[in-house]
C-alpha cells in the first residue's frame, strides 16, 4: 500500500501541455482576434484607409521593408538616449534626495511640478529652445522616463532595513562605503521596478517627440502615412513600436536576471 501513487502520473502529452500552455493559449487568442478582424473587414468591405485588414498591414510592411531599419534605428536611438539620460540623472539625484532632507525639501516640489506638466505640451516649446534635432527628442524621452525612476530609486534607498543601517554604522562605514556596499544593492529591486517603467515610457516619449519634430523614426512614419491616408503603414509602424517596447522591456528583465539575480528573486513570489 505504502509508496503507491495516490494520483495517476500525468501522461507525457498532459505534461507537454502544462509546459506550453503559457505560450499556446495567448497565441491562439491573438490568432483568433486577427482572424475575426480580417473576416470582419472583408465581410463589411471597410475601406482600407479607415481600417486595414491584418493582411494589408503585413503586405504594406513587406513593401516598405527597405525603409524600415533606418526608421527603427532612429526611434531606438531616441529611446535609448532618453532612457540612459534618465538613469544617469535619476540615480545620483535619488542618492542626494535620500541622504539629505534639505535637498529633498528643496527639489521635490519642483520635480512634482515638472511631472504634473504634460510632456506633450512641453515638447513644442522644447523644440523652440533646443532646436529640431536629436537633443529635443532625447530630452522629451528623458523627461517622461525620469520621474518614475527617481521615485522608485528614492523609495528603495529609504527602504533599507534598520538592521542593515545599524550594521553599517556599527562597522563605522563611511557614506560612500555604505552606499556602494549596502544601500544601492539593497535598493536594486526598486531600481529595476523603476527601470521597467522607464524603458516603456521612453518609447512613448520618443514617439511624442517624433510627432513634433523628426525626419525619420516610427513616430514620424505614423504622422507621414496618416497625412497621406496610408493607414496600413501607420498600423505597421504601431506594431513595430509595440514589438520594440516588448523587446526593450525584456532586455531590462534579462539584465536583472543575469547580473542582479537576488533582485529578480526579491521581486518575484517564492516558486515551488
Amino acid at each position: 500500500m505504502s509508496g503507491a501513487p495516490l494520483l495517476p502520473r500525468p501522461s507525457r502529452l498532459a505534461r507537454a501541455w502544462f509546459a506550453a500552455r503559457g505560450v499556446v493559449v495567448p497565441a491562439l487568442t491573438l490568432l483568433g482576434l486577427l482572424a475575426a478582424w480580417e473576416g470582419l473587414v472583408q465581410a463589411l468591405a471597410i475601406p482600407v484607409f479607415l481600417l486595414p485588414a491584418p493582411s494589408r498591414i503585413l503586405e504594406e510592411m513587406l513593401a516598405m521593408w527597405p525603409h524600415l531599419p533606418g526608421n527603427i534605428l532612429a526611434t531606438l536611438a531616441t529611446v535609448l538616449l532618453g532612457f540612459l539620460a534618465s538613469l544617469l540623472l535619476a540615480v545620483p539625484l535619488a542618492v542626494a534626495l535620500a541622504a539629505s532632507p534639505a535637498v529633498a525639501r528643496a527639489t521635490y516640489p519642483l520635480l512634482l511640478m515638472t511631472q504634473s506638466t504634460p510632456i506633450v505640451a512641453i515638447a513644442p516649446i522644447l523644440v523652440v529652445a533646443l532646436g529640431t534635432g536629436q537633443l529635443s527628442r532625447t530630452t522629451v524621452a528623458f523627461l517622461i522616463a525620469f520621474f518614475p525612476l527617481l521615485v522608485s530609486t528614492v523609495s528603495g534607498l529609504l527602504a533599507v532595513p534598520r538592521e542593515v543601517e545599524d550594521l553599517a554604522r556599527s562597522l563605522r562605514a563611511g557614506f560612500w562605503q555604505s552606499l556602494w556596499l549596502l544601500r544601492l544593492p539593497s535598493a536594486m529591486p526598486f531600481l529595476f521596478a523603476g527601470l521597467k517603467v522607464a524603458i516603456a515610457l521612453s518609447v512613448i516619449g520618443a514617439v511624442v517627440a517624433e510627432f513634433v519634430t523628426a525626419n525619420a523614426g516610427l513616430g514620424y512614419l505614423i504622422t507621414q502615412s496618416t497625412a497621406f491616408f496610408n493607414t496600413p503603414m501607420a498600423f505597421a509602424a504601431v506594431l513595430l513600436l509595440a514589438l520594440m517596447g516588448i523587446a526593450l522591456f525584456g532586455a531590462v528583465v534579462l539584465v536583472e536576471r543575469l547580473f542582479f539575480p537576488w533582485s529578480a528573486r526579491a521581486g518575484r513570489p517564492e516558486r515551488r
Partner: protein
Amino acid sequence: MREPAEPPPAVLLLGVRHAYPTRAGGELRALDGVDLTVRRGEFLAIVGPSGCGKSTLLRLLAGLERAAAGTVQVEGLDPAAAGDLVGLVFQKPTLLDWLTVERNILLPVRIRRDRPGPADRAAARALMEMAGIAAFAERHPSELSGGMQQRAAICRALIQDPELLLMDEPFGALDALTREEMCFELLRIWSERRKTILFVTHSIAEAALLADRVVVMTPRPGRIAAEIAIDLPRPRRPASMAEPGFLAATQRIREHIYGDAARAAAVGTAL
C-alpha cells in the same frame, strides 16, 4: 603595547542615563542610573521585559548611540573609538542577500580595511568550520535556514577577533528546538574563543543556562534590579537544566521580574 597595572574591565557603565524624544515633545527615559562592570571573558546575560532598555544598553556599547549622561567604556575606551573591539549580533541575521555567506562574513574586513586577503579568507574559513557552516560558504543567505543564517551572523561578528560580543536577542526569531541547539553551539564557540559576551534576552531559562551572571532590568526607566551569579558548573549541557543550581537561579530571576507574586506562587508549589 602599553600594559596598565590593572587592565580595564571589558565593560564599564557608571551612572548611565539615556532618553529618547517622544512625538508629543516629551522624553522617554530608557535608562536611568545604570552601573555595571563586566569582567573580561565573562558571559553576562541581561534579562527584562520589553522596554526595559536592554537593547538601548547594547546600542550605547556598540557606539550606535551616545549616552545622555554617565560613563560608557569598552575596554577602557569610548565606544566611538572601540569599533574594532566590538562584534554585534542582531535578532535578525541581517545578512546581505547579494553576497555569498563567506563574503557576508568578510564584510567587516571589507569595510574596516580593504579587500580581504588570503589571511582574512583563512580566518573566515576557520570560523565557518567552527560554526559548522563551511559547506555553505559559497551559498547565498536565502538558501540557508534561520539557524544557519544566525551562525553566519555570529561568524561575521567574530571575523575581526573582537574582545566583546554584543548579542541582542540573537535567537529570539528561531523556533524553540533550534534555539536550544544554538545556545549550546554558542557555549561551545565561547569556550573556544574566549570573548566577553553581553547577551540580551527575554528568556529566563536561556539567560540562566548561558551566563556566569544574570542582570535583571526593570522597565521605564530602565534600571538594574538585581545581579544574580549563576552557580552551575561548566561545560553546561542539556542536563544542566535539571540541576538545583539552575532551578534556583531561574526562580530568583523570576522573583525579581514579577516581584512578590512569583515568590507567593513558588511557596504555593513548594507546599
